[in-house]
């Protein structure tokens, strides 16, 4: 068990990369998703068609392929490597792939949430002389947020685990770090347990997330 500190150190730094990708994706995809949701609900046909087209492409293809395309296509097709080969470039490409992918899923959840608010409330608002913007921010938004928390929690927990897909473009997240010891890394070769041990990290982090999201759901209960 002398290897324990080395393995845990490597897994920690791998998990740090996992967390970085997770938080950046959330920060980027939560607002971008709202933008796409507005796009798909727009009465301006070309805009709603475009949004729906993007959502179709992104939801219709595997995230793994999207990662490969975003990282390798600039160099392969345009003959101009825009990411750089190092860790930073790989992280950047992974972040952008994840943000776009998750924004599309989020947008559909938002749309469901917004459209679930009864039309009567909007009509009442209009009768009272409120603007559409006022109606959205003062009447619909909080109700929508409350309703989308359970499906969003689902997606967010999936996101934690999906970050492992980024290893396809050699982003060194925790699964990569665990697998490294199977072949040999830092003087430890042929060790299987670090790979399986990574599951503990995911499990604990998702446990914390679940508690936090449940608490948020309870806080938003005042609408009932």
């Amino acid at each position, binding site marked *: 068990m002398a290897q324990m500190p080395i393995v845990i150190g490597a897994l920690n730094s791998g998990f740090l990369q996992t967390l970085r990708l997770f938080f950046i994706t959330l920060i980027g995809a939560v607002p971008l998703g709202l933008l796409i949701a507005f796009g798909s609900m727009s009465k301006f046909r070309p805009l709603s068609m475009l949004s729906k087209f993007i959502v179709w492409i992104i939801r219709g293809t595997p995230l793994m392929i999207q990662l490969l395309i975003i990282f390798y296509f600039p160099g392969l097709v345009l003959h101009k490597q825009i*990411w750089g080969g190092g860790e930073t470039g790989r992280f950047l490409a992974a972040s952008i792939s994840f943000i776009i992918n998750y924004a599309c899923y989020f947008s559909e959840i938002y749309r469901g949430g917004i459209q679930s608010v009864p039309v009567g409330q909007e009509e009442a608002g209009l009768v009272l002389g409120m603007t559409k913007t006022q109606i959205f921010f003062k009447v619909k938004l909080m109700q929508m947020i409350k309703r989308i928390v359970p499906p969003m929690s689902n997606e967010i927990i999936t996101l934690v685990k999906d970050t492992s897909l980024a290893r396809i473009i050699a982003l060194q997240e925790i699964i990569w770090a665990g697998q490294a010891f199977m072949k040999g890394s830092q003087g430890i070769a042929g060790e299987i347990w670090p790979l399986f041990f990574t599951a503990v990290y995911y499990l604990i982090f998702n446990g914390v997330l679940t508690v936090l999201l449940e608490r948020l759901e309870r806080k938003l209960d005042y609408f009932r």
Partner: protein
Amino acid sequence: MKRKVLSVLLCGVLAVSMLAGCGSKSGDVVTNTDTEDAAENAAEDGSSATDTETAADSDMAYVVDKGTLVVGITDFEPMDYKDENGDWVGFDADMAKAFAESLGVDVEFVEIDWDNKVLELDGKSIDCVWNGMTLTDEVTSSMECTGAYLNNAQVVVVPKNVADKYQDTDSLADLSFAVEAGSAGEAEVSALGLNYTPVKAQSDALLEVASGTSDAAVIDSLMAAAMIGEGTSYADLTYTVALNSEKYGVGFRKGSDLAAVLDEFFVNAMADGSMQACAEQYGVQAALVQE
């Protein structure tokens, strides 16, 4: 009604700004490729009179120009691995550092997914693959490779308690094998007509044997020496038959002139003894290709 128009307009502005954002980005890229193409064309025009090897010329010029040789590797002791300080060392890593120095450029090591090595080269995220790479037909047809610099073999890995039964090729017929997809090991077992399952990595092949889902694995002898036996999770495994002998080389982008430059560097390093010294440091001197 006015407000409705306003909100539609706002959405329109958002959409346009999004599109504009995308547009300017791709615009940049296009401009860059244009200028690069233009530069390449100019180089071609300029040198067509004097030199026919234009495409190859540009790769060495490309690396020297950006000032860094990006070496694609995997963590693979004793070829490329991290020392206590987290620096990349190993026989391949040290030779790569010396080669970069001879070119007058910095060296950068990047860990890659081995399956994507050709993608990484063609996508220019790395400049060469220098990581104990077996020179197979597949490798030499998709990359510009150097000559061989190190000997290697594919060996059969079986549990220790049954190792006695499998000491020659004929005895292997009734075993189920696990081999790395696309590896030299896969080529060997399929040539022998053996029953096998392709897996993602050599380490996964060992996992198959250790867990009993396959009877045997075929992996590199250098890797087998480092990964199995006492002090690993695979203490109960051992290796027996060598199925072939093969050679390691370094791969560059197809058509690159750097492969020839590195060949010359290897010849010089052999001549002045620096390559032998480096090999002895990592215990691979017996495997060096003597010319």
